[in-house]
């Protein structure tokens, strides 16, 4: 009897979290996968159709349109390729900028104020960041075009988010502006753990600052880098608010991303295309599963 009671106690502690996670997180995840193998008539489920929805999304231009990128014409290339481009630019930039800024700010007076300035984008709603990004790129009211005019490149001035050839890139750079604060804070925390003596010793040995950076700083901060890449990957695949409020995926799907495409196929398309929406969802869930395996390794270390 006592043993039974002992077994029940951890369950009691876990109960509220288990009920919530089971019903409102795990259930919809499983349901998303199941729904992706069904044929739909608007909101009505008809029958099991195997991988038909997956074939359908790869044939649909708003998800996957490699022709555009192969011809080097401007976007849309489809949400999948846009999200991949997003990752390819976003991840290296936030890592490099975060690392550079954290090293640069290490001993600077007033560094906490500067860090807060860079971090603010991570604190306020992403929807507000979207508004700010759209505002920066505005043709007449935006500061970026004012800068171009100042340096004599006035004929480049335009609303960057309003044209298919620049909308996606403009938003990606906007997201870099927001997320650099995150990577900088992580790297700065990592740097605080490195003892000052290590650097002094390297300096006495006559190592150049460049060599110290590559041989000491970068290897020591490797766990931070791995963490930033994993979290950055999750964040980039989650992007929704920012695109929703700036371009709504436009113009003409030129800045469409996976998250927004799922939303549009579910709630905006008439009739609703739940087969495609859940097939894309399942694709994202698969990436999340792979990511979480890496994340677990990181936790164990």
């Amino acid at each position, binding site marked *: 009897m006592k043993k039974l009671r002992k077994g029940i106690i951890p369950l009691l502690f876990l109960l509220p979290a288990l009920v919530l996670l089971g019903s409102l997180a795990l259930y919809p995840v499983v349901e*998303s996968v199941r729904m992706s193998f069904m044929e739909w008539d608007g909101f009505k489920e008809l029958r099991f159709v195997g991988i038909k929805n997956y074939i359908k999304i790869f044939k649909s231009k708003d998800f996957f349109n490699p022709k555009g990128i192969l011809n080097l014409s401007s976007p849309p290339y489809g949400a999948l390729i846009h999200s991949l481009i997003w990752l390819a630019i976003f991840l290296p930039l936030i890592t490099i900028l975060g690392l550079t800024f954290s090293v640069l700010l290490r001993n600077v007076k007033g560094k906490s104020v500067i860090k807060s300035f860079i971090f603010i984008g991570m604190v306020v709603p992403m929807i507000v960041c979207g508004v700010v990004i759209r505002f920066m790129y505005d043709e007449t009211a935006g500061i970026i075009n004012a800068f171009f005019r100042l340096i004599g490149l006035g004929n480049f001035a335009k609303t960057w988010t309003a044209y298919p050839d620049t909308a996606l890139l403009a938003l990606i750079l906007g997201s870099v502006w927001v997320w650099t604060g995150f990577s900088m804070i992580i790297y700065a925390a990592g740097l605080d753990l490195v003892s000052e003596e290590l650097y002094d010793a390297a300096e006495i040995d006559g190592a150049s600052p460049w060599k110290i950076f590559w041989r000491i700083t970068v290897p020591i901060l490797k766990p931070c880098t791995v963490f930033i890449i994993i979290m950055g990957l999750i964040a980039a695949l989650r992007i929704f608010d920012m695109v929703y409020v700036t371009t709504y995926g436009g113009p003409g799907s030129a800045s469409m991303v996976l998250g927004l495409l799922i939303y549009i196929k579910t709630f905006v398309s008439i009739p609703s295309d739940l087969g495609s929406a859940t097939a894309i969802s399942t694709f994202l869930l698969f990436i999340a599963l792979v990511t979480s395996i890496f994340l*677990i390794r990181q936790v164990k270390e």
Partner: protein
Amino acid sequence: MKKPRFSAYIIAWLIGVIWILPFMGLFAASIRPYEEVVYGWWRLDKLSITLKSYLEALDHPTSPMSKAVFNSVIISIPTTILVVTAASLAAYALAMYKFGFKNLLLFVIIFILAVPVTSIIPPLFFQMHRLRLINTRAGLILVNATWGLPWSILFFKNFFLSIPKNFVESGRIDGASDFAIYGLIILPIAKSALISVAVLEFVWTWNSFLFPLILLHNSDLWTVTQCIPVIKGVFHIDWSLVSAAALIAMIFPLIIFIFLQKYYLKGIMVGAIKG
């Protein structure tokens, strides 16, 4: 410690100013009339300061920010309380007991942490519809809290593991029940962790947009983030009005960050270093 060169100061401050400049623009636009902002908030040849945009945003005809602030507050507070309670209880079990499905549970928690919420919106919408929780604050609170749990549980678990075991043992010897040890011994020690989770959870709930967007269709219930795209509109953007609305939407998270920065950053960093 080596003193940085003067040029390093200049570059560091320049970067800081470049990064904050867009937000300064937002603030400047919110206190100047649209006719001036449209040609650049940085231009000072004609300068008038007005709170007109704030009053308009607070009293907006289709999405009044005054109501939205109220809605966001009464959604974020219960969500925060729910997450802190459920997550600290679960983390206590994960940190202090051995049980069969512990590794599986940890895997599920980390998996949910990595799931982009956009990928569950179709089934979640139907599920909430069947439960009659669409257009209810309770529905949004439950969903927001659920998706805040994984990170909070991991954070609490790491913190509880760092508490010396003899605190728990001494409680056991005194004959305290498991829940008494959790509530009377562990929680008081974990005060800073509780604040960290509460601060981050409040801000994250306040900032969330996708869940309110799909769950609250009745404009009387809209949160601050939901109002921003509506106030922005599609074709003609009144930058003064949008900026004022955005400032109202961000003021709570900003104040919390300024005053509780230590707890906020600790939450993010401990999560980072220990996963």
